[in-house]
């Protein structure tokens, strides 16, 4: 009888120690994750590898007329950002909508256009660099910024993901930010590296 109580007590203590250890390890890992990593500042004109893409931010400018086949109503303005993008993966892909993200002052989602012939968001072919234009609408009455700060996002390759065991690009994360000088009109020159 007392033996039973003692063994139960022992089990409780061992279980408790295990739980506390697990909590401590989990907490420590979480704390490591929460540490703010210093933001990497990327240079305009320099190639950056994001995982699926190699991108080279080239220029940013505002327009008050339609650009690359995208219509714009009178009085509306848009912020255009252009980059050279190369598909590093082994398959045609249009996984580029969130590669560049506006950090504020514009509409949430950009239109993405192939500069070469104004095709709306085509899949880009492996190994063929293309110049792409990201076009953000500006809120009515907002003054365009002097410097346009973009977040550059990357992804990591997983041989098999946790849900389907399928290979692919996952875990999108910010690689760094790039600040582009904002010109006026489509004659703005490209940033030199």
């Amino acid at each position, binding site marked *: 009888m007392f033996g039973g109580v003692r063994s139960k007590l022992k089990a409780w203590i061992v279980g408790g120690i295990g739980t506390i250890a697990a909590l401590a390890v989990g907490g420590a890992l979480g704390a490591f994750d929460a540490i703010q990593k210093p933001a990497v500042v990327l240079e305009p004109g320099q190639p950056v590898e994001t995982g699926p893409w190699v991108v080279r931010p080239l220029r940013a400018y505002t327009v008050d007329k339609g650009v690359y086949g995208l219509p714009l109503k009178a009085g509306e303005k848009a912020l255009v950002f252009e980059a050279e993008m190369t598909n590093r993966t082994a*398959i045609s892909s249009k996984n580029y909508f969130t590669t560049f993200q506006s950090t504020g002052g514009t509409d949430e989602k950009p239109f993405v256009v192939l500069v*070469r*012939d104004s095709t709306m968001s085509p*899949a880009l072919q492996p*190994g063929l*660099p293309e110049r792409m234009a990201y076009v953000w609408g500006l809120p009515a009455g907002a003054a365009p910024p002097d410097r346009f700060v973009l977040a550059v996002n990357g992804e990591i390759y997983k041989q098999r993901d946790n849900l389907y065991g*399928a290979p692919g690009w996952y875990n999108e994360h910010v690689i760094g930010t790039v600040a582009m000088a904002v010109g006026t009109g489509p004659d703005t020159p490209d940033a030199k590296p």
Partner: protein
Amino acid sequence: MMRRVANIAVLLVAAFLCYGMQTTTPHYADLTAPIPVYGKIQDTILTRTFDIAVDKVVFARTLKFDQFGKQNLLTSGGVWAIVTARLDAADRSAMVAAATWQGPDRLNYRTSERASSAAGALPIALDPGVPGRTRLVFEILPSQVSGATLLVSGKLAGPLDSEARIALGSVATQPNGLPEGVTETYELGDTF
């Protein structure tokens, strides 16, 4: 004593078997992969839902075609590959929806979306006994021209369905890296 040794041996064998099964488990993506039907250019390849025979492959620097009454000139940083093929439905009406140019380095080029409004582009609906044709347009790296394979399937994502894999053979290259016999401009007309 003998019993203990036997038990340990059984345990080791079981562990070894489990390890072997774990390492040789096929990938989920392989288990649900399309089922290939192999062939070469000019062969008629019979898949579950459709038959396909590649007529010819042409390379071009630029493409010309009319879109909404406006003439388009499509340039490329690589080279255009235009594949024409004859199609037929097997025994019931079927669709052909996806084609991929797989280069010798296993780079996969889906049909170009820039030329997807030209005549003969996928998807194509087929009826049994009614001859069909398709013209597939790919934008590829010049290094992926020779020794490529054309993959054609009925659905965009076709797990466990048959997929034609057609060896397109080798193509001679010019000193500038472009394939021999490349034309400057290919017109994507309404007939082909």
